[in-house]
């Protein structure tokens, strides 16, 4: 009997199922790096930019603009790192980085994220600063959960954790900054390290 052919068939089925539906697995390293960027951004913000007790931050103040710039820089650095590491991995595995799955992954990731971003901007322009941290965590978590069906690994659990943190943050006003540090810094590093160890074992 041609048992090798059947083994090959099974292998091909698995391979095609993986490649066609969920080929992109963000490497653990990109998670760790994203967490480190977030922590450094938060450290700079905490040391130099947070308003002194008694004063408050306004939309047009210089430190508000700098905080926004830091946020954008953290996001951009994380995205570039994730892109470079994924491109490298795709090349190594002889896969195309940009195909139907990646496109759908990006779209399902961006819908909640952009919605949240616009919502936060609207709230900021009407002077509702208080919930920004919580909203960022919640919408980011939703984006992760939504995109997870096109990725390998356990990224939806990171999403659930971010959503849970966001909700806790909403219930404890005044700690937005610390929840942000926990969600975007610590969680990314923990998740990234976990994934990294798993990758090394393989």
């Amino acid at each position, binding site marked *: *009997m041609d*048992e090798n052919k*059947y*083994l090959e*068939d*099974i292998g*091909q*089925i698995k391979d*095609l*199922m993986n*490649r*066609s*539906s969920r080929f992109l697995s963000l490497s653990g390293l990109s998670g760790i790096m994203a967490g480190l960027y977030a922590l450094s951004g938060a450290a700079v913000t905490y040391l130099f930019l947070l308003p002194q007790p008694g004063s408050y931050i306004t939309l047009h103040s210089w430190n508000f603009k700098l905080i926004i710039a830091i946020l954008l820089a953290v996001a951009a650095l994380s995205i570039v790192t994730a892109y470079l590491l994924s491109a490298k991995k795709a090349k190594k595995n002889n896969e*195309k980085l940009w*195909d*139907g799955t990646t496109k759908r992954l990006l779209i399902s990731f961006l819908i909640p994220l952009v919605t949240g971003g616009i919502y936060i901007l609207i709230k900021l322009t009407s002077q509702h600063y208080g919930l920004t941290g919580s909203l960022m965590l919640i919408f980011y978590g939703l984006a992760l959960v939504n995109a997870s069906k096109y990725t390998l690994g356990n990224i939806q659990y990171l999403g659930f954790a971010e959503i849970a943190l966001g909700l806790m943050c909403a219930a404890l006003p005044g700690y937005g900054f610390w929840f942000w540090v926990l969600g975007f810094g610590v969680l990314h590093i923990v998740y990234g390290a976990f994934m990294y160890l798993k990758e090394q074992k393989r």
Partner: protein
Amino acid sequence: MGLIDGINKLFDHRIRLGIMSILMVNEHVDFNRFKELLEVTDGNLASHTKTLENANYILVEKSFIGRKPNTKYRITKAGRTAFSKHIEALEHIIKQQK
């Protein structure tokens, strides 16, 4: 039970096996996506999708995106059942070998 009971002759071909594997995990897939994943020519792919369509294992939906024709495929319930049985049979055979 014979060893190759449950092996479906229709799936005993690389491209048809590939088409079914992809459709098991994707709601719908268009022609070009198949070409990209399976690395086959138009004519070759078309003849195999036809075979699977005639067996009622997949459904074909033709439409237009702008002026370009777009052909989408999805798996039928019968196709899903048949392919699951085929995978089970393959796994069964492999287990017997060990």
